[in-house]
Each structure stands twice: as C-alpha cells, then as structure tokens.
C-alpha cells in the first residue's frame, strides 16, 4: 500500500528519480549521452534530443564515451549508442557500461536485422532504435530510466523491509490478481507463516551489516578482477580466491561474488551470440510480450524470491500462476527477464538469503522434495515408462535436486546436452569431470545412467512435436560451454551467487527449447544428484539452504513450460493439482520422505 519510504532518500543523483514525486517537467533535463561515430547522425540526434528538452552530451568515440562515463559517475541517466563504431564496437561499450555503471543503454543502428537487434537485447540494451531515429522514439526514452530506477528501489526496499513486497505487488495489480487467484489453494496457510517470517526478516535486517557501500568497479579494479579470474581459470574462479588474488583492501567477498556473477553473465552474453538463432525460434509469436512482461513477472518473482521471507510454497504458488492463465505462453518469457534485467539486482537478496532462510535449515531438504516431486510425475504422461525404469534413482535425485538451488542452471544445461541425442551420453559424463562431486558420489553413476536412458527416449518423443527445434541447436553448444563454468561455481557450495545466477539461467535455456523441458528436468535430475550429494558432503549449511529455497521456483517454472508446450489441459490440471498438493503439504509439514514414493509411480 504505502510506497516504501526509505529508498527514495537513498536514491542517488537526481531528484526526479522518485517517480512518485515526479515533477511536471519530468523528462526534461534527462541527461543523455549520445555516442555515434557518424557526425551527421550525431548532430541530428543531438538536435532531436534537445528538442525533447533533454540535456545532451554527444560523443563520437566509444572510448571517449566510456571515459566520460567513468569520470562522471552519476553524470548521465541514459546512454544512446551506435552499434557500429570503428574504435569500439557498440556492444562492447554496452558491456562496459553494464558491468561498470549499470546505466540504461539504448542501442541504435541502421542495421535492422533481427540478429543484431537480438544481440543488443542479449547484451543488455534496454532498447534498440533503428536509424533513422525518429523524434517519437526519443521522446520516450525516459521510460528506461524510470524503469531502471524503480528496479533499484526494489532492491533497496528489499533490504529495508519485508513488507515492501506487498507494496510492489500493489503497484502491479495484474500480477497480483494472478497470484491470488492461483495461490488460493496452496497459499492459505502460508500467509500466516509468511508474516512471521517477515518479522524475523525485519529483525535481522535491523541488526545486519549488509548495507555496505556499493563498490565501484573501475576499469582498473575490473582489470584486476579479470586477471584474477583468468589466473584461476574461469571454472575455478570463486569469489574467495579471486578476492585473495586481487588483494584489494575494503573489497569483500560479496562484492567480488556479485561482480563475478555479472562477469559470468557478461561472458555468457558474449558467447551467446547464437542466441540470435534461439531468438528466432522462440521469439516469434511472443515477441511483443517479451519486453513488457519482463519487468512485471521478472521483477516480482525476483522480489519475492529475494526478499527471503517468502516461504517456498508461496514462491511456488506464484509460479503456478502462469499455469492458470490462459495465455500461458507468456510465463516462460518472464524468466529470461530475470536473466537480462535483474542481473545486477541480486546482490542484496543473496545476502538476505543467507540469513533469512535459516529457519528452513532442517526442513529444507524434505521440504523441497515435494515441490520438485511434481516434476517427475508431470512428465509421466510422456515418459512414464522411462520413469518407471529407474524409480529408485529418481527418488534420490529428487532429494538432491531439492537440496540445492543450482538445478535451475543445471537443469537447463544438462537437459540441453542430453537433448542433443545419442552423443549426450558422452557429453554427460564428459561434462562431469570438472565437477569434483561426480566422482565422489556413490549414486551418481546410477542416476546419470538412468537419466541418459530416459532422455533419449524422451528425446525422440519430443522431437516430433517441438517447433523451433533445429534452430536451437547452436544454442545448446553454447550453453554447454557455460555449463562447465557453472559447475565450477556450484562446487564451491558456499557461495550464493552461483545459485542465484543459476536460477537466472534457467530462463533462457528453458526458453530456448521449450519443447524439451521434460528432458531437461530429467537429465537435470540425474545431474543434480551429483551436485546434491556433493553439497551434502560439504554441507555448507547456509548455501545449501538457500539453494533449496530457490529451487522450487525454477522447478515450477519448468513445469509451467512443460505445460505450455504440451498444451494438454489434463496434464496441466494434473500438474497444478500435484503442485498444490505438494505445496500444501510443504507448509504443514516438512518431513515428506514418504511423499516421493506416493508420487513417483504415478
């Protein structure tokens, strides 16, 4: 109801950033940096922007622009950059800005090919204008600044109070409706619980020391960071080691961790050029909704997940929401938004998670089991047989899946790997060595085998129905590459970032091949077993729990996807029921060992 008060004052730089108190002149005075090597365009843009009453700084070289930006932190509200520039590619500039100052960047080019536009989006551009740029487009660019700012509040709000989330929801009535309507079954008990958690969370906030000053990642600092990462090898680079190597006083592990997270996303985006291909396959019909949905769904999800006071069930119910909606196709789309937009906003939540989720300590394992349990059962209709083949490993897997949040990333990744078909078997095992846990785990052999088998079966089944399958192929390989990175991270166990990041990952990959979600889940299950066990053995309690928290999220999402793509209503309803069942039980009780057994044979 009440807009969160504190964050407004903490919001830096410009006064009108508090949108609630927007002045009449609002967009006037917006500080825009325009970067274009073409003097003609630059001049026209400058004039147009001035006519919009913006404060314009023009710059014909990307290097200079970067320097300007670095020297004037908080000196600009938005950057408009050309894509093709001789001294520095516009995308590169975009990366730098994304990594270093987190400003909204609008890309523009005469090149209107889908692949380039897609590249802009995947690299984090908030908009893409096609030349000749028109006044109308420029009149609206302030919206990106507002969006970004709002987003930042959310981050801060989350830090400050547990009730903010309600405020946020109220600002988004549409989403709210979805939640409540879909959550009514599973959520009835959680409200009370959540309240308790809120209180706890608030208490913790008061005493916590998490409000650290934001570290400014100057180019030098970033360079040090990159050097450290390279020295360690991207797979083995964990925040703690990086921190040691960098040896910068005042820098905390969390700082490094969050930067590492961004950096990984950045790398992924770099290597994710193929995502263009992927774009073609998945963006088609849902194109339009992509942009608009993301801030809503994505943010809310994030807010909920991040705030930590939300119990897994409520999260899950939120996830269920899309299932209930007739326009289910949209739900997957909100996931990538997490990836692209919220990249930078997870630092705090992470920390929160550490502290906030302690109460789930004992329960988390069991707790999550149910939630994901739905998944194998969901798949039954398609892959019943395969499931039956390996009921035992599955139950294992589930356990592990739940115990950690990683699955999201892993789910997708491995799923993809396996989807590749016969070779998947090879990949699968090959992929593991990087993951130390693999060899350690007693069960893993079995489970991975099991999942291999199932995957292949599933694969065949799916190929028929899935559209956009072929174009997705390149994406797979890309994702595979990344996957190894993530493994490295996950092995750390103690770092939260990887989890969060993992969670974020799910979206894109899932989206990439919607039709495959089922394998994903399966193969993931297999893989996760390993991780889970590893985690168990190392049992850094905090991380474990946190992971567990995140998981339901993704798991459910995948269910949602699954549904979407199969579009079978009965399946869907079954799914829902199961999920809600699971939810309900989670709430009341955490010990659910028996539950798997009931569910599995379905």
């Amino acid at each position, binding site marked *: 109801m009440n807009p969160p008060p504190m964050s407004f004052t903490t919001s830096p730089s410009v006064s009108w950033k508090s949108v609630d108190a927007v002045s009449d002149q609002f967009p006037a005075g917006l500080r825009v940096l325009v970067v274009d090597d073409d003097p003609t365009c630059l001049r*026209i843009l400058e004039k147009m922007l001035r006519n919009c009453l913006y404060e314009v700084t023009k710059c014909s070289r990307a290097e200079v622009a970067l320097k300007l930006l670095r020297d004037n932190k908080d000196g600009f509200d938005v950057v408009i950059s050309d894509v093709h520039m001789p001294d520095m590619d516009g995308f590169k500039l975009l990366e730098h800005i994304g990594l270093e100052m987190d400003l909204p960047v609008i890309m523009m080019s005469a090149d209107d090919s889908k692949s380039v536009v897609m590249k802009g989006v995947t690299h984090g551009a908030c908009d893409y204008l096609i030349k000749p740029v028109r*006044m109308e487009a420029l009149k609206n660019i302030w919206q990106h600044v507002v969006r970004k700012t709002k987003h930042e509040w959310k981050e801060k709000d989350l830090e400050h109070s547990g009730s903010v989330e309600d405020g946020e929801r109220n600002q988004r009535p549409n989403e709210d409706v979805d939640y409540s309507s879909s959550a009514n079954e599973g959520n009835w008990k959680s409200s009370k619980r959540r309240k308790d958690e809120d209180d706890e969370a608030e208490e913790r906030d008061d005493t916590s020391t998490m409000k650290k000053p934001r570290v400014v990642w100057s180019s030098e600092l970033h360079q040090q960071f990159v050097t450290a990462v390279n020295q360690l090898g991207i797979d083995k680079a964990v925040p703690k080691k990086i921190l040691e190597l960098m040896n910068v006083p005042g820098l905390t592990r969390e700082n490094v961790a969050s930067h590492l997270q961004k950096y990984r996303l950045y790398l992924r985006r770099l290597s994710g050029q193929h995502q263009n291909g992927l774009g073609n396959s998945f963006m088609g019909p849902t194109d339009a909704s992509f942009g608009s949905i993301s801030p809503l769904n994505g943010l809310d999800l994030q807010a909920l997940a991040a705030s930590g006071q939300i119990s897994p069930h409520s999260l899950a119910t939120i996830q269920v929401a899309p299932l209930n909606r007739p326009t289910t196709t949209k739900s997957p789309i909100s996931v990538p938004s997490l990836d692209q937009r919220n990249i930078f906003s997870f630092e705090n939540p992470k920390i929160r998670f550490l502290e906030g989720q302690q109460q789930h300590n004992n329960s988390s394992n069991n707790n999550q089991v149910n939630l994901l349990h739905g998944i194998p059962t969901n798949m039954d209709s398609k892959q019943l047989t395969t499931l039956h083949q390996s009921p035992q490993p599955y139950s294992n897997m589930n356990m592990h899946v739940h115990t950690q949040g990683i699955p999201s990333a892993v789910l997708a990744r491995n799923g993809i790997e396996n989807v590749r078909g016969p070779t998947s078997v090879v990949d699968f095992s090959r992929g593991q060595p990087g993951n130390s846990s693999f060899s350690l785990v007693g069960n893993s052999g079995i489970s991975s085998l099991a999942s291999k088998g199932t995957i292949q079966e599933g694969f065949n089944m799916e190929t028929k129905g899935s559209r956009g399958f072929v174009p997705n192929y390149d994406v797979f390989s890309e994702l595979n590459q990344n996957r190894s990175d993530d493994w490295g991270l996950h092995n750390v166990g103690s770092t939260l970032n990887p989890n969060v990041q993992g969670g974020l990952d799910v979206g894109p990959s899932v989206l990439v091949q919607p039709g495959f979600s089922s394998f994903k889940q399966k193969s993931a299950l297999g893989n996760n077993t390993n991780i889970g066990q590893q985690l168990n053995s190392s049992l850094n309690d905090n991380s474990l729990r946190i992971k567990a928290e995140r998981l339901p999220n993704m798991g459910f999402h995948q269910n949602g996807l699954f549904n979407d793509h199969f579009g079978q209503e009965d399946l869907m309803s079954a799914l829902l029921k199961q999920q809600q069942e699971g939810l309900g039980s989670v709430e009341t009780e955490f010990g659910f060992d028996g539950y798997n057994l009931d569910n599995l044979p379905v």
Partner: protein
Amino acid sequence: MQRQLANMKQSLFDQLEELQDDANPNFVEEVVTLYYRDSARLVQNIDKALEKNPVDFVKLDSYMHQFKGSSSSIGAKKVKIECTQFREYCRVGNGEGCKKTFQQVKREYATLRKKLEAYFQFARQVGPVEKACRRK
C-alpha cells in the same frame, strides 16, 4: 515551384526540417553539409576498397554501413536503397555487383546533392516567406 519544393522536402528530409527552429535556423543545411563532408570520405574509402584485389568485403560492408546510416539519417531514401543492395552484394561476396551498385549509389548521391543545392539556394531566396509557408 513551391509545390515542387514541398515535395522535395518531403522526400528528402522527412523529419529533418521539423528540427529547424529559431535556435537552429539553418539546421537542415548544417546537417546536409555535415553529411556531404563525412560521406565524401566514405565514398573515397569505398572506391579504394573496391579497387583492391581481393576485395575485403568486411571492410567494404562496414564502410557502406556507415554510409547507409548517415544517408538514412538525412532521409536520403534512394541512396539508402542502393546502399542496402550494395551490402547485400557484400554479404554474398559479389564484387561485380558491389561495383555496379556503387555506381548507382554515387549517381543517387550526386542527384541528391544537386537537388539539395537547388533547395538551399531557393530557400535562401525565398527567405522568411518560405519559412512561414513551411510552418503551414
């Protein structure tokens, strides 16, 4: 003549003229001058690149991209169309096609220049009257 001018403006400048105001009374001319100064360099570069053997299509494409960008910015639609064609030839590595299209590009580019010169001359003559008429 007025009508001709109006047509010309519409086809040439699109939005550009709207930007011309009291703060920048000669905005269009300023931009067009900028365009011709900058694009002359590009045309030269492209000419050179086309003579090279083998042709560096990547380079050529990047030049042409720039050229196309600024051409489209000032609303030079016909030039832009030729540029697009040129880039298409670059993409498939058709050197002959590039050369042929580039002649076309230059032709359009020259035609535009003539038109623009006529326009500016006329605008100068008409002066305030023309301005009033522009506002409609």
